[in-house]
């Protein structure tokens, strides 16, 4: 264990009530254990401190690249890992077991920045940015949400205007993970025909700024900011040529939501693991609190919900591996698993009693983090509407 800052040694142990590990390949198990070891070595000893100070552990950007957490399921020649979707899933699970903010650092870089560049940009732009993003030499962010358009991104007002060999970009984005430290942004804006277009914008270009958003009680180890564009000249080569409309950004969100469906299991597992251990160590009324029926009910429900989420994620991963996971299925898994993790965090917090509100234990941090995870990448309620529309055929959004 490196460093002496850790409040405690990270004693985390995985839990696999239904032998789901038997459904995983050697690659998956190796990837999972490697990231678990990496988190124990690099994240656990420092995370309470960074989170407490509301500071992003920026040195981890490089470490995440070295372990291979950026775009693990993208092809190797484009800076990815050449792995399958389940490997991507278990990597996200282990990162979020450490901290949702650290998982967000990786999700944004891999699924929201590298993925759209890989999928939509010209060969020249891919060659220019993807290897550097994969190696962590460049950090990216993803600008979709605006101050007045969150759940309704199609109402966005950020726009581009044709100016010969470039477009002129104007507008503002809000709640953008990594933006204050990013070297580039994948930005979604409307063209003169009112169509949503995607583009790669470098942070060094004139008219680009990214002020930090302060005062977050959640995802405190992840840096969040705005993106402000004042007459930024974006060369036409940097605009994705063939994708128009909301399906561009939504395809990226599907990729990231898929990772969150797995990641949330990690946060839930960490809370359960801590609560289980605490319930066996902490004695009241002359016996371990784990011996009381009310505590057992909490623990029993937690491991049941975790098991269901694990099976859901595994099945979703198997579908994704053959290109058959639908956006609606991904939406359901994201909503269910994040909600499951948040409920577990709240119950685990209670099992820890007063200690549960301190940074001696990871649960309160996970609980606060998960409030963001419940909201970003589509709020819990918006995902209910997606399932609702899928099963009824009726649109309840507007």
């Amino acid at each position, binding site marked *: 264990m490196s460093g002496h800052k850790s409040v405690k040694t990270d004693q985390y142990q995985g839990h696999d009530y239904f032998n789901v590990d038997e459904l995983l390949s*050697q*690659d998956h*198990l*190796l*990837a999972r*254990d490697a990231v678990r*070891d990496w988190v124990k070595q690099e994240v656990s000893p420092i995370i309470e401190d960074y989170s407490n100070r509301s500071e992003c552990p920026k040195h981890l950007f490089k470490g995440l690249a070295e*372990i291979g*957490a950026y775009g693990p399921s993208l092809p190797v020649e484009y800076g990815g*890992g050449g792995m399958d979707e389940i490997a991507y899933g278990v990597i996200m699970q282990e990162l979020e077991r450490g901290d949702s903010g650290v998982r967000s650092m990786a999700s944004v870089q891999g699924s929201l920045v590298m993925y759209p560049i890989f999928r939509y940009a010209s060969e020249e732009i891919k060659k220019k940015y993807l290897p550097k993003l994969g190696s962590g030499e460049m950090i990216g962010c993803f600008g979709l949400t605006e101050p007045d358009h969150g759940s309704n991104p199609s109402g966005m007002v950020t726009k581009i205007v044709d100016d010969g060999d470039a477009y002129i970009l104007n507008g503002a984005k809000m709640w953008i993970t990594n933006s204050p430290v990013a070297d580039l942004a994948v930005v979604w804006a409307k063209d003169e025909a009112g169509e949503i277009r995607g583009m790669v914008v470098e942070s060094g270009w004139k008219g680009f700024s990214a002020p930090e958003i302060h005062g977050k009680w959640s995802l405190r180890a992840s840096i969040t900011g705005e993106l402000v564009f004042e007459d930024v000249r974006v060369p036409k080569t940097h605009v994705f040529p063939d994708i128009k409309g909301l399906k561009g950004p939504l395809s990226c969100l599907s990729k990231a939501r898929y990772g969150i469906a797995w990641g949330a299991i990690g946060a839930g597992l960490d809370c359960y693991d801590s609560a289980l251990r605490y319930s066996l160590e902490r004695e009241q009324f002359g016996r371990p609190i784990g011996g009381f029926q009310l505590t057992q009910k909490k623990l029993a429900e937690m491991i049941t919900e975790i098991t269901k989420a694990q099976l859901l994620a595994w099945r979703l991963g198997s579908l994704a591996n053959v290109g058959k996971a639908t956006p609606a299925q991904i939406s359901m898994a994201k909503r269910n698993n994040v909600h499951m993790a948040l409920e577990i965090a709240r119950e685990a917090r209670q099992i820890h009693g007063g200690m549960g509100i301190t940074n001696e234990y990871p649960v309160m941090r996970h609980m606060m983090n998960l409030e963001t995870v419940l909201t970003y990448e589509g709020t819990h309620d918006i995902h209910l509407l997606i399932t609702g529309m899928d099963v009824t055929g009726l649109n309840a959004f507007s």
Partner: protein
Amino acid sequence: MKLLVAISQTPETTARIAFKDDGKAFDAAGVNFIMNPYDEWYALVRALELKEEVGGTVSVIHCGPAAHDVTIRKALAIGADDAYRVDIDPDSAYSVAQQIAAHAKSEGYAIIFTGKETIDYNGALVGGMIAGILDQPFISHASKMVTSGDKMIVTRDIEGGEEEIEVSTPFVLSASKGLAEQRIPNMRGIMSAKSKPLTVIEAIPSASLATYTSFSVPPPKSAVKLVDPSDMDELVRLLHEEAKAI
């Protein structure tokens, strides 16, 4: 330099240990296995470092059934070039040593690395036995190794201090803490391990020189008794009458 690392797998450190068949055998049900940490963190990594310094190859060898392949794959993911698995469910340190020595005899390895012991049976025997069979020097509990011309200077942990030994290849070395630092495999390593050769070797007939009579778990620790700091008489009484320490 041609290097061989013997790797073994052991129950995870947090595994619940139980025995079956009237205490004659370990009950592996529900137990997760890991690569023995002394093999993984120190022996394998020092071999890889040496290859990086002077060139050569690092092979790993494991005695066990196909179900153990994931442990071998991990060694390849960390950086070994190729692997051998002797298809045998070994029943003693001697049977493992015989198999590894039989493979190494014809391969001409400069150094054979093992961990100082496995963290389950704590035998610390395999390395010495391999050296014995191959008639090579054996250096146990190595915590440091540096190259010096065509020789190696190896530091050994000994009671209350260290011992420095100069040795020429070939030799067998068992690694203890400090010889190297853990390397976590990355995703690239895990993927490239898939295309590295893993050769399955048929086991040679080997005789077991030991049979196990029984295993048992240590009795549970009794609760700690707290004594009021001002009550020296009570402390002395407990140490004398209950702990029988004075």
